[in-house]
């Protein structure tokens, strides 16, 4: 179970898709923030567990958040 909880190894935000709806900021406030261009960015030293990250990615209305595992395999979307 411990392994499963920590499978997400890389998170990226596609800035062309991001519209600044900030649902990710609500879902994972310690991990995502909006920058001056109204785009979601990953906070410096940001932390979140897998469940929170998945919820944040799934909440994005433009599917702009991409999650990858340790082998670089895309987990979401």
């Amino acid at each position, binding site marked *: 179970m411990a392994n499963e909880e920590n499978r997400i190894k890389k998170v990226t935000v596609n800035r062309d898709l991001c519209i*600044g*709806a900030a*649902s990710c900021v609500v879902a994972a406030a310690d991990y995502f923030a*909006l920058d001056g261009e109204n785009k979601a960015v990953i906070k410096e030293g940001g932390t979140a567990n897998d469940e929170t990250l998945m919820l944040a990615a799934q909440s994005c209305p433009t599917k702009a958040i991409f999650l990858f595992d340790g082998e670089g395999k895309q987990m979401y979307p």
Partner: protein
Amino acid sequence: MKSVKYLIIGGGVAGTTAAETLRGLDVSASIAIVSDEPYRLYSRIMLSKPNFFLQKIPFEQIWLKTESWYKEKNIELISGVTANALDAKAKNVTLSSGEVITYEKLLLAVGGRVRIWDLKIPEAGVFYLRTLDDAKAIIAAVPNAKQALSIGGGFVSFEMCDMLRLANLEVSLILREAHYWSPMLDEASGKIIERALEKGGVKIYRNAEVASVLGEKMVDGAILKDGTRLACQMIIAGIGLSCPTDWLKNAGVAVNHGILANEYLETNMPDVWAAGDAAEFRDVILDEQIQLGNWVNAQMHGRAAAFNMTGKHDPFKLVSFYTTQGFGITIAFVGDSRPLPERTVIPRGSADAGSYGRIIVKDGKVFGATLINRTNELGLISKMIEKNVNVAGREQDLGNASFDLKTLIV
């Protein structure tokens, strides 16, 4: 007669998030969604985004659920029908198809409808923007138009102006008010937006209203109340939203502008909840009854209502916000940013320099903010509202643009 445990009226983000959350909490319960649109869940917030309109983002990106998702989750989607009547005692809903569905728990996530113009209008050329079909009609019309009118001063109108300019149309914006987004924004904020619009080639008519629309079958112009005649082949009317609540009122559900709900999103009727744009709910952070029309609020409502429908009793807590960008500027509204008489508005930054915020304070508590080109402060201000930070005596700091708001949050 069909019978389900959880019946959800509305297939938008509030209703669908509720269904998904319910399925996570209850693996075997029967769940049905009734949607008056003929589609599965799509991204309504993307409908007004220029990149979507100009097809810089593939159209397919609009779908947030696959057809098979509903089957996999064992959620029945009854689409293209309206809920017409509720019997809250017998616990059933009658649909426009004639079908009657009984429920154990009901969620009303009916959303809003665009207000329709009461002017005489030609058959084609006047558009509203609320549904995917509305957006498809606008996408089809844009390549054949040279001039367009956008009516109203809100988010959708701002984004439509951006899209129409990017598509190289001549755009006139008709504002009933003296400045953009009045009275939600002050004149200084409104002027920054207007400057950006004008620099982007939008012609603005203030204190103006359309008196009549010209054209037999197709729109070919409009006349304003002051007599100004404008040529146009399309008009996008952003003249407000309303919630269809008559059928609920008849059933004894308490409604005001929206469906009244407490902090648990329960209505006055047993086993009936409300969520999303249509819910006028008790906000425990602001200690007010409010109704909000934005994506994040609807999504989080859906989630919270689902938890409470399965027997939890947790109050809904969220500092809501909405942001947009276009014409080189960003605009954000946080919390409850209405400048009501008993509230103080603290300006932050410089309207002249184009980076300008307003923090709305009452009794030493931050209620909301409007931010132009200061979106990066959205997170901090949300936190101040959420944590109920006492800002009495700190008004000068709030108004000092170089003061780091972070230091107020412990």
